[in-house]
């Protein structure tokens, strides 16, 4: 069983949207299930601060030993921070996907950022757990 925290919002493509301290700002990463499926992550290609994305745009890629996978932006927004720690240690995504393994911080540019995303229970159903 993979870890699916309550209070986060999930895409069908296995990204999560996690509310940050400030209203309308979110951390984005991939779920525990996703990191488990990908296996050892070797590096990530992430956008720069200031980049803007529409909902479900590809914002980066994750390169694991087994496969490469696109990263989809759960919500329209502007990148306000990128997790630089992943540059040196991409395995943080494997070991702590919802904590140290966050990828980008977004300021949402749509009024209802979490609409259309799954809650923990729906995501658990989605992955068959």
């Amino acid at each position, binding site marked *: 069983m993979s870890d699916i925290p309550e209070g986060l919002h999930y895409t069908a493509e296995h990204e999560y949207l996690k509310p940050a301290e400030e209203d309308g700002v979110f951390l984005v990463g991939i779920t525990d299930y996703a990191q488990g499926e990908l*296996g*050892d992550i*070797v*590096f990530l290609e992430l956008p720069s601060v200031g980049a803007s994305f529409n909902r479900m745009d590809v914002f980066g*890629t994750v*390169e694991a*030993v*087994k496969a490469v996978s696109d990263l989809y932006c759960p919500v329209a927004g502007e990148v306000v921070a990128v997790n630089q720690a992943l540059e040196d240690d991409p395995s943080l995504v*494997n070991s702590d996907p919802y904590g140290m393994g966050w990828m980008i911080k977004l300021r949402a540019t749509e009024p209802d950022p979490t609409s259309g995303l799954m809650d923990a229970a729906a995501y658990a159903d989605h992955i068959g757990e």
Partner: protein
Amino acid sequence: MSEALKHTPLYDEHVALGGKIVPFAGYALPVQYPTGITAEHHAVRGAAGLFDVSHMGEFVIRGGDALALVQHLTVNDASRLEVGQCQYSAMCREDGGIIDDLVVYRFPEHYMLVVNGARRDVDWAWVREHATAFDVEVEDRSDALALLALQGPVAQRVLAPLTDVDLNALGYYRFAEGTVAGVDGVVSRTGYTGEDGFELYLPVGGAVAVWRALLEQGRDEGLLPAGLGARDTLRLEMGYALYGNDLDEEHTPLEGRLGWVVKLDKGDFVGREALARQKEQGVSRRLVGLQLTERGFPRPHYPIVHEGADVGEVTSGTVSPTLGHGIAMGYVPADLGAAGTALGIRVRDRVLAAEVVRPPFYTGGSIRR
């Protein structure tokens, strides 16, 4: 859909260990265990790993013409083999295209061909078809034999207490019959990782006992069960070709970096004429090693680029867990095959800089030559 996946005798062990099971060569095999590919890779380089490679095929050839048939079917010179010695080789079509790469074992009274699991049916049909002209009996023993690969610098220390085979006397590419954990089998000092190690041919009924005994014996030495993922990164660091990726019927051994196993002077064999002609004329394309000089992850089928034009494609690629940079193999025009040639690998919308290098990519292995 394809038919149901076959199980090796160790399938339940893999599941119990938490192995992530994937289809490979018609079998359900673990690509990794919970430790992950990287940890399993490093365990083999630094200590030892235990692989289930029971999907490999084993054909036995016996009878008065056994050597003659082996010589006819394979490109290396099997007449040079002593009893207890094995040899890397290949089988080719008449036009030189590689049917499979394989290892030939010489036993006192017979020969054994060890072939790739994914090619077993094709190989077996080929062997049987050619055997009719020879005084031989051929037998496909694949379903009766399990094959374990114990690989890594401490492999001998792990195996020695469990076997009556004198491992000190067993050189590289030599084998002996004996018992392992009470099971009669064959201990062969061979492998696919670049590390010292052994491949153990066992009756399927004994495989679980030997698997468990080795894991137990190796626990304090850092031995890990290792899956197909690590097997692939390990072999690729050594530049060992994988049939289906780097070798196929569309390429000859001379193109595929296997010229050293082709013995044109050994007498006639299937493919000799075509290979002799190609050797004389020179190859137009060849398999090369490529090393990325910037960060990136080369994968099979990514285009290889020279001055903006696609000149080939990656057949195998990874980020080397040991070296930390991207490594790959692929076919390129022969005039672009010299070490040091600057090429590129197209990864999605970018071309990453790469350089032709002569494999092995990793030269620090414990392999005994």
